[in-house]
């Protein structure tokens, strides 16, 4: 009978059952009935204690879960609720809250990362727009000013002096070229990113690229009294590349090297063997790049924080270089070395799919390797042919001759 009573509701039924048993003991008064009532009463006490303990557990568990949910709402994802091995409903809730916290934490981390990237992107774009506006405005102003000057002179004197007119026109041409170069950069990057840049690779001698670049940048080197030294660590400079694009890349790298080099210092161009590649490394003495920015400088609109002030440029050059090298199956990366920076360019030795023997058969090996370059971090060391590292060409003219 007692079991039937207890199988009903919990709190209310227990009191009713206790009163019923007390009444039974009082009214019946027989020893058996009294003993039965006493046993039932003791059982009820035990059940009551267990229920009270269970209620306390439930209260504590719900309190813990409530705290955990509150912390989640406060974006504190570190709080976890202890789970017992019993696997009860309460444990299920606790485990669920813990796993929910992990998922929310991961989602939150992702959101924070995306926010930081978006903010960095916004800052970079603002800087780019600012730089670009400046870069566009300056030559445009120059062109307009010289045009105005020329026009005013013509109006005033009826006939302008020839040397003065020549000077104005020369300056207008320089400014026009700067504008065109800038617009070309933007268009090149757009094409590269859209995969629409036409790359025409051929087997060729990479020293021809070096010669061409040094010839074109000769005045830049002279203006800062910087000497270009070419170091050949390999007699074989044959590679598979697009000549025009490679000139564009190396000119950009050499232009940066000269721009950031210490006046009167030396810019070294080292050619050496890489794994299946020819590596061209350009070293200049000058400000280093913060380690955290060694990759970032190849992003669009980004310049190293150590040089961005007053360095000029739009921050597109290295992004174009990286995209161009990637399109040619090569690579470009930066490294801080000694008291300066080295930019490495790796160019595939041959067209993909050709074995070494087949491709090498047509390669001229007649050149003289004179100097060798030490191993660069992350690259295989090059066997020294001449550890004395003699200068092959002192200055740009050396290689051209």
């Amino acid at each position, binding site marked *: 009978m007692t079991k039937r009573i207890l199988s009903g509701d919990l709190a209310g039924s227990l009191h009713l059952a206790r009163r019923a048993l007390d009444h039974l003991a009082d009214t019946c008064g027989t020893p058996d009935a009294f003993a039965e009532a006493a046993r039932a009463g003791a059982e009820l006490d035990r059940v009551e204690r267990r229920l009270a303990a269970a209620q306390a557990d439930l209260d504590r568990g719900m309190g813990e879960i409530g705290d955990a949910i509150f912390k989640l709402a406060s974006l504190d994802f570190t709080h976890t609720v202890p*789970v*017992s*091995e*019993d*696997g*009860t*409903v309460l*444990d*299920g*809730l*606790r*485990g*669920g809250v*813990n*796993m929910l916290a*992990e*998922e929310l934490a*991961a989602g939150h981390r992702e959101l924070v990362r995306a926010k930081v990237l978006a903010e960095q992107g916004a800052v970079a774009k603002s800087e780019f727009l600012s730089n670009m506006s400046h870069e566009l405005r300056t030559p445009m102003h120059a062109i307009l000013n010289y045009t105005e000057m020329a026009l005013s002179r013509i109006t005033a004197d009826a006939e302008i002096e020839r040397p003065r007119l020549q000077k104005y026109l020369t300056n207008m041409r320089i400014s026009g070229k700067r504008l065109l170069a800038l617009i070309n950069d933007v268009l090149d990057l757009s094409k590269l990113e859209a995969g629409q840049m036409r790359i025409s690779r051929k087997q060729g001698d990479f020293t021809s690229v070096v010669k061409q670049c040094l010839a074109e940048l000769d005045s830049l080197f002279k203006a800062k009294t910087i000497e270009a030294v070419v170091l050949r660590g390999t007699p074989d400079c044959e590679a598979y590349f697009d000549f025009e694009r490679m000139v564009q890349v190396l000119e950009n790298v050499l232009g940066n090297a000269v721009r950031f080099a210490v006046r009167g210092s030396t810019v070294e161009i080292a050619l050496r063997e890489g794994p299946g590649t020819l590596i061209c490394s350009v070293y200049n003495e000058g400000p280093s790049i913060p380690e955290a920015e060694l990759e970032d400088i190849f992003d669009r609109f980004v310049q190293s924080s150590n040089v961005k002030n007053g360095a000029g440029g739009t921050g597109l050059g290295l992004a174009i270089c990286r995209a161009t090298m990637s399109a040619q199956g090569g690579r470009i990366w930066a490294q801080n070395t000694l008291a300066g920076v080295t930019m490495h360019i790796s160019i595939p030795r041959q067209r993909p799919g050709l074995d070494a023997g087949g491709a090498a058969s047509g390669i001229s090996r007649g050149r003289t390797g004179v100097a060798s370059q030490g191993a660069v971090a992350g690259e295989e060391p090059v066997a020294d042919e001449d550890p004395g590292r003699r200068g092959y060409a002192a200055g740009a003219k050396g290689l051209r001759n």
Partner: protein
Amino acid sequence: MATRIESRAQIGRLDDEGIIRVRAKPGVDLTLEDAQDLIQKLGAMGGGRRRPALIDLTGIRSISREARTYLRGPQTAGIESAAALLVGSPLSQVIGRFLIGFGEGLFPARLFTSELEALAWLSSSPG
């Protein structure tokens, strides 16, 4: 080829029907290392074939997010053609639900409270 494996957190075997059977040890907190160890051993046991798997989670206490992500990932898809997760307690049901994830998985997976139903589903699942 071994037909039984045991690691810190799980025991597994390949039964006569070609079904991988894995049981999480009672009270275990499954980590990424446990998950990687399990998949590596199951891969060796399965002989490079994708097989249906019956995973008994009834005794598990917790599983880390990294382990959940890994067990839903391509490494597991490489050895399991379908996974029937056997759950019992409310806790194991919640864990099983999180383990399956909320999106489309790389392989079919379902929760079961009955082993017979789980095996019937595995035998009818593709792969």
